[in-house]
């Protein structure tokens, strides 16, 4: 999902109203109304109603049923697994994202564009294929399968496989958020710090990091949302063992298949809630970034 990053980089930029809306470049009222109407209708049909539906279904039988569905042991196990997966995949991609952004944004070297393309690659690979590749490598019939079996190392149908697939799918998020941000910031502040005698690490911690922290946080937040929500890739490598290798999205599917719709939507609503919290955090980050960075730069 290449686009995520797009939204990201935008995320931390000024998203204010235009300074003024002078008469000369404004459409007649009816055109405005028509366009706003079209936009709202489209969004209602494709965004709002589905979102409301999730919660409506989840609460169909009241709060008690809803809460009960969330504390059911298998649900808890799924939530735990999802959290664990995200807790591993996100920091890994975070470290990667920072390293990649550092070398790409702050240095010139040959092959940079190829590197950028390769970093984007997982965005456009079908999640199903993302799962398939791990089956081909770690499956009992795959390259490393026999060796792994011999050494009793479990990757596929176990947590490592799920984490790997998640890492693959969420691979570019942080990097893609940071690269444009760091590029636009240039290197002057780092150079200033070095001239003042700061070491490399100090420069990074005290100068670079504070400058990218909102972008970084935003990248992490979206990476996390996607890591917790991934279905296709994880479905292929999970094995669907109840209470063991089911992540939340998979658990949703299972509950759904057990005619347990309320519980399915309850878990789904948890994920939707996560998405909403993500968006709220994102909005907050944008707001903060505007507050902090985009104060009148010239007076």
């Amino acid at each position, binding site marked *: 999902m290449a686009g995520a990053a797009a939204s990201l980089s935008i995320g931390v930029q000024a998203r204010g109203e235009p300074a003024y809306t002078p008469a000369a470049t404004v459409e007649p009222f009816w055109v405005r109304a028509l366009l706003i109407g079209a936009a709202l209708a489209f969004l209602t049909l494709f965004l709002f109603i589905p979102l409301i539906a999730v919660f409506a279904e989840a609460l169909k039988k009241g709060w008690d049923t809803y809460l009960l569905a969330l504390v059911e042991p298998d649900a808890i196990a799924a939530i735990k697994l999802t959290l664990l997966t995200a807790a591993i995949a996100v920091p890994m991609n975070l470290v990667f994202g920072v390293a990649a952004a550092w070398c790409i944004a702050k240095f010139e070297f040959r092959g940079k564009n190829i590197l950028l393309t390769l970093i984007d690659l997982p965005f456009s690979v079908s999640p199903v294929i993302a799962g398939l590749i791990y089956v081909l490598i770690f499956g009992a019939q795959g390259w490393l399968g026999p060796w792994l079996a011999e050494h009793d190392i479990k990757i596929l149908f176990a947590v490592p496989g799920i984490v790997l697939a998640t890492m693959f799918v969420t691979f570019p998020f942080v990097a893609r958020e940071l690269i444009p941000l760091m590029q636009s910031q240039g290197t*002057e*502040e780092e*150079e*200033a*710090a*070095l*001239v*003042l*005698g*700061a*070491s490399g690490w*100090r420069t990074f911690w*005290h*100068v670079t990091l*504070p*400058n990218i922290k909102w972008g970084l946080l935003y990248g992490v937040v979206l990476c996390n949302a996607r890591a917790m929500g991934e279905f296709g890739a994880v479905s292929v490598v999970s094995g669907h063992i109840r209470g063991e290798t089911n992540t939340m999205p998979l658990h949703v599917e299972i509950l759904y298949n057990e005619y347990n719709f309320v519980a399915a939507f309850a878990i789904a609503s948890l994920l939707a809630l996560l998405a909403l919290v993500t968006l709220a955090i994102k909005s907050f980050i944008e707001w903060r970034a505007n507050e*902090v*960075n*985009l*104060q*009148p*730069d*010239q*007076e």
Partner: protein
Amino acid sequence: MSIEVKNIHKRFGNFIALDNVSLNFPQGELTALLGPSGCGKTTLLRIIAGLEQADSGHVFLDGEDASGQHVRERQVGFVFQHYALFKHMSVFENIAFGLRVKRRDVRPSESEIKKKVMSLLELVQLDWLADRYPPQLSGGQRQRIALARALAVEPRVLLLDEPFGALDAKVRKELRRWLRRLHDELHVTSIFVTHDQEEALEVADQIVVMNKGRVEQIGSPDEVYNHPASSFVYGFLGNVNLFHGRVHEGVLDSGGIAFDAPDHAQAQDANGIGFVRPHDIEVERYTADAEGIVARLRRSHAIGPLAQLELVRADNAQLIEAVISTERYQHLGLTEGETLIVRPKRLRVFVNESASQSA
């Protein structure tokens, strides 16, 4: 501390940014690096600071070869055109940064740091801004903070890359005078880059004029302005009128009028250009017998001490700019459209562009 660079070469890909540059920056002086955009000023400054690596050549700080030293160790103060203040740190923290990142054994105590920072803030006259953040400052204020930050670590030299380039004309003028005063107070060896000749002339003790990666001239403001070593320097350092013509045995013939060119006594019918600054042009009412160039006054305006005249030569319709004192202007009672006699008081002839170096 003195700075010396020797035989510096620097390329970017195929582009030669610095071509065998050797310079001396004397102890305690304020030197301007002046030249058109892209001539390599920034590159040279960055090489001195250690922010860039020269392809060959050496940088000596206080006589000691610094080429191998990391920027961290060179103890230079660097002021960037766009300030490069740390946006997330307060003014105070910005200035304190250089002190706080010192190795523990040489790091001053917090109270010393505080004293130092406050005294620097006083020096740049902005002590009331200590708690602000850079985005809350005006451009001029930011630049002064950037300077204070550079000074905090007691640099051996101060390097400023177009420090006022991002400011508007009025602030710029104010700040350059302020910089001069500051320098007079501190006497740190300083180099500052500019492409504004007025700025260089007004502020610097010494000016280095660069062009296309080479040094064209080095000298005091008076020297480079009044005795330019090349036609390039002449043209770059102020407005100038050009009289194209042929030089023969010490005389430039431009459109039938003869100008003395004593430098070129041995020239034999060579192409030559006479350079005259607008204020080196004498103007008087036309009289039939007066010697000089006949020109029509197209436009004039006299505001303040000087009057600007735009004249058109009667013979070849070339434009001549002249500057005379407003007193004289009023005394002459000139009106636009009238015909005048124009005479260069001082003219410098360069034969051929390529020969200009030897001229």
